[in-house]
């Protein structure tokens, strides 16, 4: 985002490209100083900062040495000036994608502007989003000593003081949902015990919370990253819990009336979801349903042991509570009549109610019936009498399984299921097949139907061996061995080999609008053929979106709908942690009995403690869960989860590389136990503990909150150490340790602080006096390397060290807290900055200054200069001085270019 702007308007460059005199990469103290000085000279400067705030590392320090001035007090005016200077434009959350050289010698810079997911001009920095956010992550700006939220303001002095939302992508569960339900969102809310908010989040997509909580095939769970560990979260059952717990109506008001009327034909999942969405948008909706009850297959086909009728009725009540009218027993054959009756638009959502026939001899015999008719009679309370009868169900899909299991419950003495496919190829869910067999259904796989036996009533189903279901091209083309036959005696035969739509209506696959009649739309199975409930929900939601645009006179072409960030890869999620504790998944709770005698629901609901524990297993794959709590609470309406990355191209005359340094990873010295021992921290973490905006109320041990009595510093951790590939001195570790030494003695007057050092380097004005001051205050300094650190009971730490000044013997001492004075490493981002030319690095991978002694700041590329620690470890005054040199070089370059142009 652009935090300032001034002369960012296009100047010399063409093609929409914005031109500047100079560009500064990085906005630490060196970068800010460079930009401000160039700006003061009148040059127009673009500052590109990859973090969400300017200020670099200095703003996170407690105080500076040797003056002990407040680091924030020095940094924040510069940060403010940088972002408000009329000659500076600052892009935070931005990265350089590549720098090339134009024909005229200027630089062409591609900048990736990362989305902040917050409309920053609207954001007031009130932090309400942060307090409402349901996802907790380590706070990288506080050394991971405390949590922050996925929606957050980086730190109290951040500039800009604006929120952002951390999104790594779309969580796999949410990404997998055809309906666009924010699965991660409602799981994270359930984890917090915010069940009603979670319920309302599902309602943003569909009113069918209870039905989907029971009968969805849960593609979210198939994609759950936790499935790569011990097993997926029970996401569907969490949704069911939310629906079961919710009381009363939906608690949602219809939108502002638009005066438009929509007729929906069919009340299945597509029709109900579309009605819900259209009602939310203020349209008057009436549903025409041919059946005596609304709900489509959910109400008429899916057996009550999987989806009780009252659950569907409750979901339907959500829709009617919004003012949607449902007229049952109302078949519509003439869609145009609806338009003539005053409806502004019509949505056809009639599903696939027509059973497919076998087309074999004697199919018309009595007691041979389609599964849809059979299931419907059962669900509507008027089942056939199957007591003691032998039933054969034909088909290998879920409907066939439903029919077979329903027949068992109606008292059939035998239930056989015949299907073309081998068991492993059956289109029914494997768990459903297993359950059916466990209940007593006898499976006859790889058989086709020759015909039916009997005179008036069916007495047998005649079989022939099916040798293949699909042809070489993958299309349905069953092959039979007519010589291998069999016969199943039966009293009733139920055919469940497919369903089809009543009428063919061609609609655009994206807009779902009829090409011939723009007021006519279609969605769900009537368009796609038989699909899953959640697919139909997604289609209904899309149809409502398009219908709404149509009714408002808006274009339907190339309109983004439900565009999601790319799904997060499982490996990327798992890599975020060094390990994952085992969290056992809930065991399946279905209790199966042989030959069940009733339609009681098989799967019990989960208890609240089970829900909380299950939701706590969520890995927050996308970081932001899309729970929408930030959207709900933001008084400025600033949250914008639809923001996407943009690439900008700018032209500049000169580049200053001020990317700073990276810190040595303390766990690369495993003998010191960082990451394993809670009370071994880094100097940077101690900076945070001492800073005015510290994560704790004072300096406390991370292991238990104890105020430490004895604190040790281990100098040169990762510096001057060939064993970790860094022979260089980091220059400022001695001084910051001495500074912290004094600050600790101020914060904890009774604490003893001991510094284990190789040798103390204090080469600056007042530095040595500062060192002497620390010693005078009581700081202990022991010369000699620390060999190892071990953890004692209670979290104390045993240092094994060399004591050079006392005979060089090896000694041990116990401390409450150990601080590793970590050194610095080059920031390797510099390696990929330039695409056309190579920016030379020195032997240590810092930006090379070929003539460092006489030409500081100049690099191997004419027109490119380096400022601050990107060229090597520097303390703050040195970085500022070096930035001055780079600025002078850059200004001279720009002036020369003007003269020679």
């Amino acid at each position, binding site marked *: 985002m652009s935090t300032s702007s001034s002369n960012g308007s296009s100047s010399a460059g063409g093609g929409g490209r914005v031109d500047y005199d100079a560009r500064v990469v990085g906005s630490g103290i060196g970068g800010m100083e460079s930009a401000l000085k160039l700006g003061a000279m009148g040059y127009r400067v673009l500052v590109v900062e990859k973090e969400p705030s300017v200020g670099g590392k200095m703003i996170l320090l407690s105080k500076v040495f040797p003056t002990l001035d407040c680091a924030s007090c020095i940094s924040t005016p510069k940060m403010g000036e940088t972002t408000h200077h009329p000659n500076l434009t600052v892009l935070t959350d931005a990265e350089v994608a590549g720098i090339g050289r134009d024909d005229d010698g200027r630089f062409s810079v591609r900048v990736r502007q990362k989305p902040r997911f917050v409309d920053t001009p609207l954001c007031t920095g009130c932090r309400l989003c942060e307090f409402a956010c349901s996802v907790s992550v380590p706070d990288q700006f506080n050394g991971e000593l405390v949590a922050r939220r996925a929606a957050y303001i980086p730190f109290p002095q951040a500039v800009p003081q604006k929120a952002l939302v951390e999104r790594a992508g779309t969580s796999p569960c949410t990404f997998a949902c055809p309906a666009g339900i924010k699965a991660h969102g409602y799981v994270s809310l359930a984890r917090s015990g915010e069940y009603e908010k979670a319920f309302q989040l599902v309602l943003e997509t569909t009113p069918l919370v209870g039905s989907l909580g029971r009968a969805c095939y849960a593609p979210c769970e198939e994609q759950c990253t936790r499935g790569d560990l011990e097993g997926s979260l029970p996401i569907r059952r969490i949704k069911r819990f939310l629906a079961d717990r919710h009381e009363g109506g939906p608690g949602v008001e219809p939108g502002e009336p638009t005066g438009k009327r929509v007729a929906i034909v069919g009340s299945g999942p597509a029709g109900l979801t579309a009605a819900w969405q259209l009602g939310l948008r203020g349209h008057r909706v009436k549903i025409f349903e041919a059946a005596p009850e609304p709900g489509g297959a959910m109400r008429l086909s899916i057996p009550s042991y999987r989806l009780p009728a009252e659950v569907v009725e409750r979901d339907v009540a959500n829709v009617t509570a919004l003012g949607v009218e449902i007229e049952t027993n109302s078949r519509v054959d003439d869609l145009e009549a609806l338009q003539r009756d005053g409806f502004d638009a019509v949505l056809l959502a009639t599903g696939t109610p027509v059973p497919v026939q076998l087309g074999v001899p004697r199919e018309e015999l009595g007691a041979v019936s389609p599964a849809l008719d059979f299931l419907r009679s059962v669900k509507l309370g008027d089942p056939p009498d199957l007591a003691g009868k032998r039933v054969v169900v034909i088909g290998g899909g879920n409907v066939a399984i439903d029919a077979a299991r329903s027949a068992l419950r109606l008292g059939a003495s035998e239930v056989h299921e015949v299907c073309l496919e081998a068991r492993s190829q059956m289109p029914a869910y494997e768990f459903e097949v297993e359950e059916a067999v466990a209940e007593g259904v006898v499976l006859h796989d790889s058989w086709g139907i020759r015909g039916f036996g009997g005179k008036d009533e069916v007495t047998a189903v005649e079989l022939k061996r099916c040798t293949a279901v699909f042809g070489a091209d993958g299309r349905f083309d069953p092959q039979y061995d007519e010589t291998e036959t069999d016969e199943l005696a039966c009293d009733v035969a139920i055919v469940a080999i497919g369903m089809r739509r009543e009428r063919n209506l061609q609609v655009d696959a994206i807009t779902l609008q009829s090409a011939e009649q723009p007021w006519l739309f279609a969605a769900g199975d009537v368009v796609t053929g038989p699909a899953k409930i959640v697919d139909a929900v997604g289609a209904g939601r899309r149809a409502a979106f398009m219908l709404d645009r149509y009714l408002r006179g808006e274009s339907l072409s190339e309109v983004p709908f439900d565009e999601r960030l790319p799904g997060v890869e499982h490996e990327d999620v798992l890599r975020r*942690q060094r390990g994952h504790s085992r969290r056992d998944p809930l065991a399946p709770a279905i209790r199966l009995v042989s030959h069940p005698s009733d339609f009681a629901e098989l799967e019990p609901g989960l208890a609240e403690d089970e829900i909380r524990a299950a939701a706590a297993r969520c890995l927050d794959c996308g970081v932001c869960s899309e729970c929408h709590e930030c959207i709900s609470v933001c008084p400025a309406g600033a949250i914008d989860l639809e923001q996407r990355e943009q690439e900008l191209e700018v032209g500049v005359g000169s580049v200053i590389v001020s990317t700073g340094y990276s810190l040595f990873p303390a766990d690369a010295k495993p003998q010191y136990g960082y990451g394993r021992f809670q009370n071994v921290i880094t100097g940077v973490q101690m900076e945070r503990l001492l800073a005015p905006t510290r994560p704790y109320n004072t300096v406390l041990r*991370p292991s238990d909150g104890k*105020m430490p009595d004895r604190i040790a510093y281990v100098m040169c951790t990762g510096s001057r150490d060939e064993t970790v590939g860094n022979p260089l001195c980091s220059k400022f570790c001695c001084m910051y340790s001495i500074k912290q030494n004094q600050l600790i003695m101020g914060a904890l007057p009774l604490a003893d602080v001991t510094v284990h050092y190789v040798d103390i380097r204090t080469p600056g004005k007042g530095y040595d006096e500062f060192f002497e001051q620390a010693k005078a205050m009581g700081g202990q300094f022991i010369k000699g390397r620390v060999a190892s650190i071990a953890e004692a009971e209670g979290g104390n730490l045993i240092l094994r060290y060399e004591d050079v000044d006392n005979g060089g013997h090896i000694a041990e001492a116990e401390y409450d807290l150990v601080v590793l004075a970590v050194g610095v490493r080059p920031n390797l981002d510099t390696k990929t900055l330039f695409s056309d030319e190579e920016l030379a690095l020195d032997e240590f991978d810092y930006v090379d200054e070929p003539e460092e002694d006489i030409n500081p700041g100049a690099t191997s590329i004419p027109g490119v200069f380096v400022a601050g620690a990107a060229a090597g470890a520097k303390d703050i005054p040195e970085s500022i001085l070096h930035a001055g040199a780079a600025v002078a070089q850059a200004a001279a370059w720009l002036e020369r270019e003007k003269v020679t142009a």
Partner: protein
Amino acid sequence: MSRDVREIVREEPLVRSRILAALAAGPRTVPEIAAAIGAPENETMLWVMGMRKYGLLTDLPEPEGDYYRFQAATK
């Protein structure tokens, strides 16, 4: 081996109510809260400090021995 910090802080929303319940009888130190909720002290420290940061807990101004005590914030 302690758990990854990301895993611990992720559970803060889960344990909030337990920590607040543990503080119902009065202020407690981190080790006391940890004992009350049956969780490791280092993990409790992260949760307590997260709750303090977001205004659910406050610390008493004076420590008790080597430890500060925390109490539920009054709204």
